[in-house]
């Protein structure tokens, strides 16, 4: 499955709904999308990963890069992820402590 990216704005945040596989082949598409949004002044991003089937370290790298980009503008990046197989990857790499990971869009948008 390829990568799908849908973007919308809600409650002062830009939500990117990601679907499919984030790997060494598709991760550049996500990186380009984040770069484009930050370039347009969207500094508060929510990455919804509920429909992500696969994530490797290339994908993690893109997320870390995105976090650094928005923080450079005093922005934020929140992740939505409730799949144990993906959460395990964040824990193993120590990134569970780096990202704000929420179980739903409502939780992610509720945090101030």
């Amino acid at each position, binding site marked *: 499955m390829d990568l799908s990216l849908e973007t919308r704005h809600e409650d002062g945040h830009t939500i990117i709904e990601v679907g499919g596989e984030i*790997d*060494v*082949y598709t991760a550049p598409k996500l990186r380009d999308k984040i770069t484009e949004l930050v370039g347009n002044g969207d500094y508060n991003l929510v990455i919804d990963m509920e429909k992500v089937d696969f994530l490797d370290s290339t994908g*993690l*790298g893109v997320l870390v*890069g995105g976090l650094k980009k928005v923080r450079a503008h005093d922005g934020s990046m929140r992740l939505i992820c409730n799949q144990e197989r993906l959460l395990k*990857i964040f824990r*193993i790499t120590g990134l569970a402590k780096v990202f704000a990971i929420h179980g739903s869009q409502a939780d992610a948008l509720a945090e101030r």
Partner: protein
Amino acid sequence: MPAGAARAATGISVSIARDPALVRTVRLVAAAVARRASQDEEFVEEVRLAVGEACALLVGQDSDARAQSGPVEVSMRLEDRLRVRVVASGTVAVSDPPTSDIDGVEPWALLRGLIDDFDITLDEHLTALTMSWPLS
């Protein structure tokens, strides 16, 4: 045929060009091999992730470097354990360049954290990643 005999006869080798688009194909093969050994989907997922990760690291993201390199070869064998070996010519950086997006993330952290039996062999001409899992 006894189950053990079937396992001893199971071995698959896949050779792919250094094209990131092909890594997914290897993941599918790895999942199929793992599923032959176990119905535990958590195990299958771990093998799929680990083999895909190893291939992604050896395929690399630098297209100029890829163009000058040979294929990435993956062999999977079901013996006493599921044994996987991923080999490519050239050496792989064990740390990220300063410009990398994964600045600050050790590139092998995921594989080391995921697999108890994981080893990297680097020499002047070749990089080999070996990993194995016990079979229940």
